[in-house]
């Protein structure tokens, strides 16, 4: 049976056309046809502009005939287009009335907001020709990748160990030893390393197309070129960053990224994308026309009554997330990344913005967040909110979740950092963080799985810098050290910056081991910042968003130099993954509700069963009862953790184990390597079963089996 609608109805300058399908938006291939569809509520006219690949001037501009419009959508089909050789854009006509929210300008050629492949910044750092009329150029994508049996892994969220990483920082530095540094292919080459480390989820900092040359400048301090390295500035929500693909110069970034996801999945590693739906790269009223501003300014942006841009993102504009059309675009984008790229989850940058209405006011039941929580395609996708924004909205613990959303637990970071540097007054808070922050998440029944715990992330100090600097050192960013967070809760262990003092360096390593121990034995989803496992430093720069150089890049020589740190991380991660008792999904009961002889969780102190309660205390211990955490009918071990953040040694009385079990030592961060940590499963029995001495600023972890 042949279809009757496969024939052109119009011809324009030699091209055969017919009315398109308004939905789905974007460009899509059907047989020998390409369907182009774009909506604009306020545009009066639209032209499709076609270029041959890389050419400066278009070879044809096709008006959308009257019969090619439906509602507010312009769509047309072109027959027999060699779409591998095509780049396309739109001209939109309409009013230029900023006070009404309209900024149409038909002299501009605009990127399709639904473009799935974007050319123009194909090779990282290659200086663009700014005179070109069309900078970020939409192309038609091949979407027929062969996934074989791959699907998103659907790892239980409480089993994740997340590794937050940046495509360039990960493999551009010294000693990375990969064929394609700074690319998706480069990450593939490092999969054996990630496996060895033991993480089972990578969270990629933004990989949507952005322009590294946005706001590029020369550092007044060292004369180096500064650029947008991190990429929290979207050009397109559907297209991967071309220059993150070694094959980006051939337009093959889609296949290269899909291959990365497939290979990670084969190795049991999930992929979470850091997505930035709070603003775009178009800036404020002085910014460039890339797409949205010229396609439908009033739809895409939150505008003040005078027509200026609200700036809740701190980046010049705010995406109008709860406009129904923008909401649809965001949902569509996320569905696309899940269906076409098999992405396992998303971390939403400045997610509090997604809950603001079109006037910028926080809503109690934001429709966008509700849609995402209930979306069928995203039904098993991890949704993680950075639950604050630059407009002062802070929603850690109160982010609207519908039982689906997890949060970056900023309070975990702050409390643990303070405790690590022996701040008094913080113990009560630390105890909440250790047990999965029930003070934040229990009342809404969100469970432990709502809490993504971290001590370091891309924003702020690396872990090595957290123990090496009291203050940020961002001079190289060219803003007189005014950028970046001031309140770091860091402690330099006695000297500001790198030093040769063996005692100080020893203490720094010990503090790093304390930090990763706290992270891995706390209930919740632990997230590690890439490079912390080898003691990566940014020389005190706590905001290296613009440092595309060795400041931000991982120095792989540290793997050998800080071998004890890597070894500690690897074993600590493995320990967590072997012990279900560390990975509860829901909050603990602190009682022996199944009559197993011990409560599921109990607090202790320097005296067993008598936890310190005073605000000025720096010692705490806890025990997890493995009988409450079975895997296939087999009970886990008992785990006891003694934490001494005091600068003096303390003896901790041990709780008695059930008959037949004895305490084994897994970790003592006060000991030198190799006695600091043992291979999980091969922990030695300790001589004294009644008491352990926990050195100054040390953590001891015991296994009862």
């Amino acid at each position, binding site marked *: 049976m042949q279809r009757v609608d496969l024939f052109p109805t119009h011809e324009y300058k030699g091209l055969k056309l017919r009315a398109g399908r308004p939905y789905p938006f974007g460009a899509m291939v059907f047989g020998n046809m390409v369907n182009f569809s774009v909506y604009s509520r306020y545009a009066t006219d639209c032209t499709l502009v076609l270029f041959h690949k890389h050419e400066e001037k278009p070879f044809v501009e096709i008006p959308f005939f009257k019969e090619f419009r439906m509602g507010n959508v312009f769509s047309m089909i072109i027959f027999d287009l060699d779409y*591998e050789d095509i780049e396309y854009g739109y001209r939109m006509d309409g009013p230029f009335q900023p006070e009404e929210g309209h900024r149409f300008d038909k002299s501009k050629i605009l990127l399709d907001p639904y473009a799935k492949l974007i050319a123009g910044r194909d090779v990282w750092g290659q200086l663009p020709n700014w005179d070109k009329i069309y900078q970020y150029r939409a192309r038609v994508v091949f979407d027929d990748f062969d996934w074989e049996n791959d699907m998103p892994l659907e790892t239980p969220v409480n089993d994740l160990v997340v590794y937050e990483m940046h495509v360039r920082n990960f493999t551009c530095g010294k000693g990375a030893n990969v064929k394609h540094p700074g690319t*998706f292919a480069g990450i593939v080459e490092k999969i054996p390393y990630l496996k060895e480390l033991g993480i089972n989820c990578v969270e990629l900092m933004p990989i949507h197309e952005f322009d590294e040359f946005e706001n590029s400048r020369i550092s007044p301090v060292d004369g180096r070129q500064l650029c947008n390295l991190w990429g929290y500035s979207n050009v397109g929500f559907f297209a991967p960053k071309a220059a993150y693909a070694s*094959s980006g110069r051939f337009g*093959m970034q889609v*296949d290269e990224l899909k*291959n990365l996801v497939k290979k990670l999945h084969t190795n049991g590693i999930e992929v979470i994308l850091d997505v930035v739906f709070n603003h775009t790269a178009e800036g404020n009223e002085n910014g460039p026309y890339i797409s949205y501003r010229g396609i439908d300014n009033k739809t895409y942006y939150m505008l003040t009554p005078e027509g200026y841009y609200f700036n809740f993102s701190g980046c010049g504009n705010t995406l109008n997330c709860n406009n129904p059309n923008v909401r649809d675009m965001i949902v569509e984008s996320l569905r696309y990344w899940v269906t076409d790229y098999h992405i396992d989850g998303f971390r939403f940058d400045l997610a509090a913005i997604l809950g603001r209405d079109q006037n910028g006011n926080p809503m109690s039941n934001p429709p966008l967040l509700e849609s995402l929580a209930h979306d069928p395609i995203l039904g098993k996708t991890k949704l993680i909110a950075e639950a604050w924004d630059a407009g002062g909205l802070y929603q850690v613990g109160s982010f609207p979740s519908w039982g689906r959303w997890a949060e970056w637990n900023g309070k975990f970071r702050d409390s643990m950092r303070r405790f690590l540097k022996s701040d008094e007054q913080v113990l009560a808070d630390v105890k909440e963080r250790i047990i999965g922050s029930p003070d934040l998440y229990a009342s809404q029944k969100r469970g432990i799985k709502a809490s993504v715990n971290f001590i370091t992330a891309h924003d702020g100090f690396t872990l090595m810098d957290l123990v090496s600097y009291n203050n940020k050192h961002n001079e190289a960013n060219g803003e007189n050290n005014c950028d970046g967070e001031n309140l770091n809760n860091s402690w330099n262990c006695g000297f500001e910056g790198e030093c040769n003092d063996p005692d100080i360096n020893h203490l720094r390593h010990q503090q790093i081991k304390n930090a990763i121990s706290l992270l891995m034995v706390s209930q919740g989803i632990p997230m590690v910042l890439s490079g912390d496992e080898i003691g990566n430093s940014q020389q005190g720069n706590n905001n290296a968003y613009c440092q595309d150089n060795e400041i931000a890049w991982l120095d792989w020589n540290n793997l050998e130099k800080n071998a004890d740190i890597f070894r500690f991380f690897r074993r600590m991660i493995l320990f967590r993954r072997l012990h279900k008792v560390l990975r509860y999904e829901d909050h603990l009961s602190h009682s022996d509700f199944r009559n197993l002889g011990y409560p599921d969780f109990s607090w202790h102190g320097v005296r067993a069963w008598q936890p310190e309660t005073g605000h000025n205390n720096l010692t705490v211990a806890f025990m997890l009862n493995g009988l409450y955490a079975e895997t296939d009918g087999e009970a886990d071990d008992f785990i006891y953790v003694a934490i001494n953040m005091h600068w003096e040694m303390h003896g901790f009385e041990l709780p008695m184990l059930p008959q037949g079990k004895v305490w084994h030592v897994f970790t003592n961060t006060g000991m030198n390597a190799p006695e600091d940590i043992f291979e999980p499963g091969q922990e030695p029995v300790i001589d004294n079963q009644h008491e352990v001495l926990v050195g100054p600023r040390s953590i001891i972890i015991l296994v009862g089996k």
Partner: protein
Amino acid sequence: MTTDIYKLGEELDSFNYQEEQDGILAILEKGQSVILDMTACKYVSSTGLRVLLYSKKVAATKGLKMYLVGISEEVRDIMNVTGFDSFFDSFSTMEECLKAIEN
């Protein structure tokens, strides 16, 4: 089962894919497996990669084989980073390929 050789030109992309695709399919249609001689080929585009994989899949449905011979380093790299390499049996030289088929 017999085998025939098909020789690719310098490039395999949207400008010539139809001709090359037809050439490969013609061999498969005859019930013969294909050895694709890529010695001269310096560039394979997204379209080109799909010609290769499509041909391989057509061959499989007919119980036939497709082998790649003499892949240049540039092309091998493209196939590697996009993951297309994993679908093919490839050989550096025709001799190696023929020997492998014999065995």
